[in-house]
């Protein structure tokens, strides 16, 4: 039992591989379990994801106490064997988890646990009964992929996990099988595949330049190539390195929905079931997008060490500013609540990119803090919006007047997250915006602070619109939606089609109409997330204690 937690001969832990392996194994059995015992399927999914959460927390503690700030695990090696070639190149796949990766892995599995708890009541009303087994299978696979990305230290290994996560998310977006979700899933798949192809191309170029797939060793080689003087044979490889860097930047920009590649996000995230929207917006664009962006730009390509960092910084900054302002302005124009939240995600990705583009430890700290905080806030927003849709069938913000009196707990949770998103002091959104603004001032770029303030104002415009309508809106009678076609969905419930083409359950078929609030299983994740937002706002020091050394490891 002892060697389950630490591998005997390395500075590593078996948990680094066990977390993805146990999730993938369970996922592949889950849809078979659903075939015979549909009742226990959600419990098994929740159980295995929470087990991986506990493992990720243990791993995080181990990484914090490790002397170097990272753990290295040599997969496929026995007790005593050669670990490195004479040139210092590691043999085989090295699973290397640093503090940044361990933190995001804990976040991924933690939010995954909450989403799967939330799914138990929510999902049977959204997708076909025969697909529920596949839903849990894909959910667990997606979390396995995202956790694997965070834990690995090998270029091709991360690509495999990225595809595991992406392909399961395409399936999950298509799950409701309405016209919108199928169309959105197809768009998402095409754009996502484009991003993936660019990433493979980048990996190929990096491999041909450096001769290795190990990130840490590739970083050393890149450093040698870039600093080689003209005349040195290594000098000729620098074009390959630059091309590879370009491929990674473009591919990961597509994956993390930076302007101008943001359009797929605004379709895919609203069309998915709400539990999945929460994971896509909260985690997917971060672990497959911004996380890898930071990992490659800093760990592998050493943007802070080389002159091309100084060339790229203004470009990234311009993209960040356009993404921030564009996302916020588009969000104001939306009437569909989930679409509004999706555009808000685009704007927030711009904040993170802005922190990265400062190329300073403080900026990176702010960016990582915002990755963490935004994941909590946006998951809560999507889950509570999903709860509104589940209970009332209303997606349009204009029809939401006085909904706060019908579902007080849900709307209070929504309000907490919205306030945090705007940046009201005791909540965690303020803390990361503060860190970003301070980093921008340190870098002597006050215009970025102005952009942050304008964007916060725009955030306030569209979030207070929802909160204001929900609590203080004019009381209006519930009118029949004009031109609503009453049709039957797969469960035989009547569906109303509103003017946006989305379907909602007709009054008589809404689940538990007598009960005003949500079932306890759906309410619990909302309350936990709202508490976490408050906690990490007040006790931001805990996060800083982890993030500061994480940035130091990235900055080496």
């Amino acid at each position, binding site marked *: 039992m002892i*060697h*389950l937690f630490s*591998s*005997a001969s*390395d500075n*590593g832990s*078996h948990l680094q*591989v*066990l977390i993805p*392996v146990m999730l*993938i*194994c369970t996922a*592949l*059995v889950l*849809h*078979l379990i659903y*075939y015979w015992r549909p009742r226990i399927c959600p419990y098994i999914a929740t159980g295995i994801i929470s087990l991986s959460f506990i493992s990720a927390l243990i791993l995080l503690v181990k990484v914090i106490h490790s002397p170097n700030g990272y753990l290295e*695990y*040599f*997969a*496929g*090696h*026995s*007790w005593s064997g050669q670990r490195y070639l004479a040139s210092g190149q590691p043999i085989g796949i090295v699973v290397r988890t640093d503090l940044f990766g361990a933190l995001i892995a804990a976040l991924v599995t933690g939010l995954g646990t909450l989403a799967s708890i939330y799914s138990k009541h929510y999902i049977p009303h959204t997708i076909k009964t025969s697909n529920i087994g596949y839903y849990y299978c894909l959910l667990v696979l997606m979390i396995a992929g995202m956790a694997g990305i965070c834990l690995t230290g090998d270029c091709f290994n991360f690509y495999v996990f990225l595809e595991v996560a992406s392909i399961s998310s395409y399936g999950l977006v298509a799950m409701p*099988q*309405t*016209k919108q979700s199928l169309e959105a899933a197809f768009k998402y798949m095409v754009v996502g595949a484009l991003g993936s192809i660019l990433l493979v191309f980048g990996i190929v170029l990096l491999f041909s330049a450096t001769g290795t797939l190990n990130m840490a060793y590739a970083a050393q080689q890149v450093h040698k190539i870039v600093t080689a003087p003209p005349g040195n044979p290594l000098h000729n490889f620098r074009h390959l390195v630059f091309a590879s860097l370009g491929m990674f930047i473009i591919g990961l920009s597509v994956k993390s929905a930076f302007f101008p590649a943001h359009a797929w996000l605004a379709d895919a995230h609203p069309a998915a079931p709400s539990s999945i929207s929460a994971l896509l917006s909260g985690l997917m664009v971060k672990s497959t997008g911004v996380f890898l962006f930071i990992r490659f730009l800093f760990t592998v390509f050493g943007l802070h060490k080389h002159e091309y960092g100084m060339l790229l910084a203004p470009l990234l900054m311009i993209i960040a500013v356009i993404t921030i302002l564009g996302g916020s302005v588009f969000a104001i124009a939306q009437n569909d609540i989930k679409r509004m939240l999706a555009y808000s995600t685009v704007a927030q990705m711009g904040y993170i990119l802005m922190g990265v583009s400062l190329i300073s430890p403080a900026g990176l700290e702010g960016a990582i803090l915002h990755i963490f905080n935004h994941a909590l806030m946006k998951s809560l927003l999507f889950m509570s919006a999903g709860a509104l849709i589940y209970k009332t069938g209303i997606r349009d913000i204009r029809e939401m007047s006085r909904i706060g009196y019908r579902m007080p707990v849900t709307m209070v949770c929504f309000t907490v997250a919205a306030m945090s998103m705007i940046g009201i002091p005791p909540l965690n959104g303020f803390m990361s915006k503060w860190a970003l603004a301070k980093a921008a001032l340190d870098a002597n770029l006050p215009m970025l602070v102005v952009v942050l303030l304008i964007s916060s104002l725009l955030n306030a415009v569209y979030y207070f619109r929802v909160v204001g309508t929900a609590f203080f809106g004019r009381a209006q009678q519930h009118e029949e939606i004009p031109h609503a*076609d009453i*049709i*039957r*969905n*797969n469960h035989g419930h009547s*569906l109303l089609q509103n003017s946006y*083409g989305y*379907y909602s359950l007709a009054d008589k078929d809404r689940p538990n109409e007598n009960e005003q609030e949500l079932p306890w299983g759906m309410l619990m994740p909302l309350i936990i997330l709202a508490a976490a937002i408050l906690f990490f706002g007040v006790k931001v020091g805990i996060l800083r204690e982890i993030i500061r050394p994480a940035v130091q490891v990235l900055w080496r």
Partner: protein
Amino acid sequence: MNNSLIVKVVSQKMVPFIIMLGASIILHGAATPGGGFQGGVVIGAAYILFALGIDAKTARLRLPVIKVKIVESAGVLIYAFTGLGGILLGSNFLANKIVLFPPQGEPGGLFGGGTLIPITIGVGIHVACTVASLYYAFVEYEGEPKPDKETE
């Protein structure tokens, strides 16, 4: 489908030979070009030939979808448990040359790969079943019963 006797008989008679070719590619995966994926595709193609020769419904009776799914998952589990065997025997994940089964042979020989043999078998099984279930998915697609009245 046309009931051509020649097609029917030849496709049935070819199946065992194609499966043997696939199995050979899988088992020699550690030593020669090819491996689990390639051999698995060959075996899956044998199934498709079999199902095209007779009609899809009869083929489905011979090999129900749920059985395909069970074997498919089992393939992955073989891989994963081979890896976990390394940890249970006190070494790292997927460690080779420490597991007592399969017998350790000469490098380059049939058993020279050590734990690669169960791994390629697992991959082969999984890929064969995936190809078969892809065939099911395409043949049996009947369009979605969508709650959609709009005509666009």
